[in-house]
């Protein structure tokens, strides 16, 4: 499982409140990713990181920010949650296999914005 832990696993929050999801990894992976999964859309990349303090936007980054102050933690923040951000959020890391290309996923964080 590449040592990935997501927290919280489930959260219900109100519109307009800030929310932070945490991804913690224990295997010193350099590359980390946040995806969201919605019915009919598969997974869409929100933000990714290629090192401490090095992050960039994915295809659906509006309304989200990220931070990576240390290798093991990649935080996803919804500054002011909206109902359209109700989704399942997956953290992922790039594995250290021989190809360096396999992406491993956490178990997901279910977020409901009411």
């Amino acid at each position, binding site marked *: 499982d590449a040592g990935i832990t997501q927290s919280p696993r489930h959260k219900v929050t109100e519109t307009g409140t800030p929310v932070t999801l945490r991804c913690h990894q224990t295997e010193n992976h350099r590359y980390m990713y946040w995806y969201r999964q919605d019915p*009919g859309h598969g997974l869409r990349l929100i933000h990714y990181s290629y090192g401490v303090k090095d992050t960039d936007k994915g295809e659906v980054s509006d309304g989200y920010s990220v931070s990576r102050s240390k290798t093991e933690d990649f935080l996803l923040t919804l500054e002011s949650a909206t109902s359209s951000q109700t989704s399942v959020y997956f953290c992922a890391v790039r594995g250290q296999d021989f190809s360096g290309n396999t992406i491993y996923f956490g178990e997901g964080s279910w977020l409901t914005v009411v």
Partner: protein
Amino acid sequence: SQQGEEDPQALSIQEGENATMNCSYKTSINNLQWYRQNSGRGLVHLILIRSNEREKHSGRLRVTLDTSKKSSSLLITASRAADTASYFCATDESGGYNKLIFGAGTRLAVHP
């Protein structure tokens, strides 16, 4: 925008039959990967095929890649009820930071 598009969206078969899922994509890629997702769980990596490979096998899985047609297929032979899941293709675009772009997936149901 999605890179990979799976076909069919849903597939229902009997145990023992083969299941074939197709994926089409739009841009040049470094590799293409297939993932499986059981209901309510994270994605599990199944197999990776590089852009210079045409076919790859792993157990009951066979993946083909046709870069001229920008398409791939995943074949699961002798399917089992435990193969019931959603299957996603994901493309790793050339020049990217291994940012996988996923399709919407194929929902496979294998009936005993």
